[in-house]
C-alpha cells in the first residue's frame, strides 16, 4: 500500500486556510464569517497533525486538542454576541451593523 505523501495534507490544509480567509473577507453574514474562521482553525489543526506525524512527536497533536477546546469556547461567546445583536437590530449582516465610523 502506498502512503500518501505528507505534502498532500499540507496542501489541503493551505487551501482550506485560504478558503477560510477568503470567506471572512468576502461573506457579510456574521454566522458565515464565524464558520469561515472555524475553517481556518481546522486547517491549522490538519497542519499540526501532519507535522506531528513528520516529527513523530505528540506535542503537535496535543496542540490540536487545545485549539478545539478554545474554538468551542470562542464560538459559544460568538453566538451569544450574534444573538444579542440580532435581538437589537434584527439582522446579522455586518454591513448593516455600522453605527461606528469616522
Amino acid at each position: 500500500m502506498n502512503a500518501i505523501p505528507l505534502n498532500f495534507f499540507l496542501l489541503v490544509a493551505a487551501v482550506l486556510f485560504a478558503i477560510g480567509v477568503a470567506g471572512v473577507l468576502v461573506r457579510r453574514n456574521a454566522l458565515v464569517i464565524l464558520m469561515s474562521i472555524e475553517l481556518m482553525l481546522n486547517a491549522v489543526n490538519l497542519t499540526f497533525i501532519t507535522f506531528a506525524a513528520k516529527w513523530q512527536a505528540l506535542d503537535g497533536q496535543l496542540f490540536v486538542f487545545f485549539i478545539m477546546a478554545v474554538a468551542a469556547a470562542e464560538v459559544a461567546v460568538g453566538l451569544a454576541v450574534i444573538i444579542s445583536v440580532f435581538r437589537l437590530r434584527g439582522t446579522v449582516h455586518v454591513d448593516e451593523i455600522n453605527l461606528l465610523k469616522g
Partner: protein
Amino acid sequence: MELSAPLIQLDLITPQLIVLAAAILLLLLPLFWRSLRREFLAAIALAGIAAALAATFWLWSRPGWGFAGMVTVDRFALAFQALFLLGGLLTVLISFNRIEEEYVQHGDFFGLLLLALFGLMVMTSTTHFLVIFLGLEILSIALYVLAGYRKMRVDSLEAALKYLLLGAFATGFFLYGVALIYGATGQLEMAHIREAAAAGGAGWLLPAGALLVLIGFAFKAALVPFHMWTPDVYQGAPTPVTAFMSTGTKAAAFAVLARLVSIAVPVETIAWGPVLAVLAVLTMTVGNFMAIVQSNVKRMLAYSSIAHAGYLLVALAAGNAAGRSAILYYLLIYTLMNIGAFGVIAWLGRSGREERLTFESYRGLGYRYPFVSLAMAAFMFSLAGIPPTGGFLGKFFLFAAAVRAEYIPLVVIAVLNAVVSVFYYMRLVVNLYMREAEEPAEAGKAHPLLIAALVIALIGVVWLGVAPGGVLGAFNAAATAGM
C-alpha cells in the same frame, strides 16, 4: 519501572493563582448573596490585585522556570505582570462612574476583568507557544464579553461583534504561523526553536511562520495595516474596558513580539529591523493623521493608541536591550496616562446619557472642575510627549534606543509624528480652558475611588517624568533577563 513525578512549582505562578482565585470568587459570590454592594465586590478585586502585586515583587528576587519548560518567570515576565496588575487596578477604580453604575453591581464585570488580567499574565510568563495561545484566548474571550457588556446598547454590541470576528480571524493567522514554525523545527518552545533552526537549515517555513505570528499579534496590538477594528471597538466598548484593552492587550502583544524577535526567530532568519521599521512608519503616520480629523474624543484616543504602538515599534525595530527596557518604561507611562485620560472621560459621564464624547463638550470645564481638568491636561501633555511629564522621557528612551541601533531616518519620522500629535492633544486642552461653553457644563460628584485612580495616574505620570532612576534600573534588569 520507575515513574518520576513531574516537577510542579506552584510558587512560580502565585500571582496568577491569586488573580484567578479572586476572579472565581467574584463570579460565584453574587450567586449566593444577591445584594452585595459594588464597593464590596471591588474590594475583593482590589485585594486580589494587590496580593498578586505583592507576590510579583516577592518573585522578583527568585525568578525561575517550571512546569517542564511551559512557564518561564524571568524578570522580563515579572515586570510585565506588575504593569498589567497596575492597569487592572486602575481599571477597577475607574469603573466607579455614573455610566457604569448600572451594571458594575454585578460581580461578573470585575470577575471577567480579572480573568482577562489572568490571561495577560499567563501569556507573558512563558516562552512556549501553547501557553501563549492559551493566555491569549483567556484574555480575548473575556474581552469579547466585556466589550459587549452594555448589552442594551447597539454600539457596545457592535464593538463586541467586530472585536470577536477580527480577534478570532487574527488568532487563525497566529495559529497557522505557530503550525508552520512547528513544521520547520519540530519545537514549540522559543529557545528550542532557535536551537533547532540554528542546527539545520529550517528553510522558508520558519520565516513564513514567524511573519504569520507577527500578523496575528499586529491585529492584537493594533498595528497598521491591521488596525481597522480598533477605532470602532474602542469607541463602542464601555470606557473602563477600552482603557484596559488599549493598555493591557498592547503591552502583552509587545511582550510576546519582543520575545519572538529576540529569542525564537533571531535576525539571522528574518531581517526584523526593516520589517518592523516599515510597520512602525505606517502605524505612527496613519494613527496620527487619522486622529487629527476625529471629533469624538474616544475615537481620537483610539487612533492615538495606534500611533503609540508605532512609537513602541521603533524601539522594537532597534532590537537591543535598551529598546526592550524603553518599551517597558513607555508602556508603564502609557498605562498610567491612557487609563487616566479614559478615567476623566468616565468621570464626566452623566447618568442616563453618554460620556462627553465631542471636543466641544469639554468647553469651559477647566475652571468649573479644576482638579479633573488639570489631570486631563497633564495626561494630554504626557501623551503628546511634552516635558516634564513621563510621556516625554518615555519617548526619549524609545528613540534613543533606535538611535543607538542606527535607525536615524526612522527616528526622524517618529519625532515628526510626535510633533503632529501635539495638535490634537492640545485641541482638547484648548477646549478645556480657552473656550466658553454654550451651556453650563455639568458633571456629577465623582466617586472617591475614581478620584483615587486619577491621583495615582497623575502622580505616576509626573514622577516617571522627573525621577526615572529606580524604575528604569529595574526595567534595565528585566530587559536583559533571559534574552
